């Protein structure tokens, strides 16, 4: 990890010095063990504040939309999942690829601070280091070595793209794409599908009742980048701000539907939700259906492949007519 931090700092310093970029977006350390948050650097002296560790989970690609309006060239550090989101933003014409320098970092998985806290390991924790598949928790007294699988985010355990899919420079060597159980990919969706209609309805009602419409899920999502979101547009008269069950349900169903076929499965939506709503289960369900009905599609991977919603084939099948309609 240290070598990577060094490489990041050197790269950033050089790029700012020779004017290759006007601004760099990366991560820096905060006060607590898990606080690695985005930082925006314009001065090469500040390059040493950049870090890379197991808590750099934030996808910083979305900031580019705003930053590119103020700077002509921005450098950004992207992990595998971040780079998928980056590609999706380009496909949506929200950022100009020529104005961005991408520094790719291969990521072995990020640590979920909640899991650390659940094990009580956060007490007196000074720092956390990662070495291969092991996490070393360092307190002032002791160093504990534990398996990374127990502490990674659920979404990282299912990660299929540890290496960035787009980059101008690489900060790390490529990581081996791990064996991911394809059955496990949609397991939580299947669990929900196995329930009855009423049970599912109750489940979602319960989940959505926690929603405070903070819009964090929308703000972090790389597929949600509209200039004027329909939920902010009172003239569209599509939704309101009242705290009514129906408003929350409407918001989440529509948002999942809007990103259908464009969701890169970065899992950030669930991570940032302050109420802990498992939003990725909605998006996963749609991806499962799209793959099953219209062929495997991975958003953000290959911009020459058309997204499944927005194109069609003459012999598409459908999930509604049993006879006299779509051919199966």
């Amino acid at each position, binding site marked *: 990890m240290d070598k990577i931090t060094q490489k990041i700092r050197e790269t950033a310093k050089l790029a700012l010095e020779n004017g290759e970029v006007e601004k760099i977006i990366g991560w820096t350390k905060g006060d607590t063990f898990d606080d690695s948050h985005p930082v925006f650097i314009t001065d090469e002296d500040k390059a040493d504040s950049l870090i890379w560790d197991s808590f750099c989970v934030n996808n910083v690609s979305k900031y580019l939309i705003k930053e590119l309006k103020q700077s002509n060239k921005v450098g950004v550090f992207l992990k595998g999942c971040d780079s998928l989101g980056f590609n999706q933003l380009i496909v949506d014409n929200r950022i100009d690829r020529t104005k961005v320098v991408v520094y790719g970092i291969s990521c072995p998985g990020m640590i979920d601070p909640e899991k650390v806290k659940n094990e009580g390991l956060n007490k007196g924790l000074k720092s956390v280091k990662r070495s291969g598949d092991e996490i070393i928790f360092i307190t002032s007294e002791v160093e504990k070595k534990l398996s990374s699988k127990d502490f990674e985010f659920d979404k990282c355990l299912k990660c299929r793209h540890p290496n960035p899919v787009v980059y101008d420079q690489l900060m790390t060597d490529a990581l081996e794409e791990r064996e991911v159980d394809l059955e496990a990919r949609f397991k939580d969706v299947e669990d*929900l*599908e196995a329930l009855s*209609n*009423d*049970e*599912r*309805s*109750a*489940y*979602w*009602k319960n989940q959505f009742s926690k929603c405070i419409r903070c819009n964090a899920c929308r703000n972090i999502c790389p597929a949600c980048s509209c200039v004027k979101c329909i939920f902010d547009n009172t003239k569209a008269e*599509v939704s309101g701000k*009242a705290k*009514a*069950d*129906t408003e929350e*349900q*409407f918001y989440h*169903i*529509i948002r*999942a*539907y809007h990103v*259908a076929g464009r969701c890169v499965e970065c899992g950030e939506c669930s991570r940032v939700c302050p109420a802990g709503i498992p939003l990725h289960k*909605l998006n996963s*369900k*749609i991806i499962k*259906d*799209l793959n099953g*009905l*219209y062929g495997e599609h991975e958003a953000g991977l290959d911009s020459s492949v058309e997204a*499944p*919603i*927005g194109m*069609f*084939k*003459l012999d*598409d099948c*459908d*999930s*509604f*007519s049993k006879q*006299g*309609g*779509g051919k199966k």
Partner: protein
Amino acid sequence: MSIEDEKIEGIDKVKFEPLVVAFCCNWCSYAGADLAGTSRFSYPANVKIIRVPCSCRVSENFVLRAFQRGADAVVIAGCHPGDCHYTSGNYHTRRRFSILTNLLEYMGIEQERFKVDWISAAEGHKFASVMNDVLEKVHKLGPNGKLRDDRWIR
């Protein structure tokens, strides 16, 4: 939902008059509905039709709004694939609403409450039978309380 609680097997305490909102495309299914009328086929008055130029005009917003406003079922009727007046509109309808159908079921809305079907301008009989079929199923399921906006008086 108090109305659903009262739906004890065999005993309906409140007389249930379902509301079905049907979106019909001007060139095929709306004409099919006209033909059903001209041929005097009958289906219940609970179905109310909204005309759209093409089934691809129907947005998920409209479908969800209908459920919000207390509709018990929503039907989208378009031209048969390959026959769309606008050549490819209903191919998009097919994909979009396949996903929405599954998503609504995933949210707990019974599959029978949301129907997408292809009805041509010559299929007046099919129109009536599709509507009768939807209503029969909705009668069995009872009123829809899911996604409903409690502030809206129907």
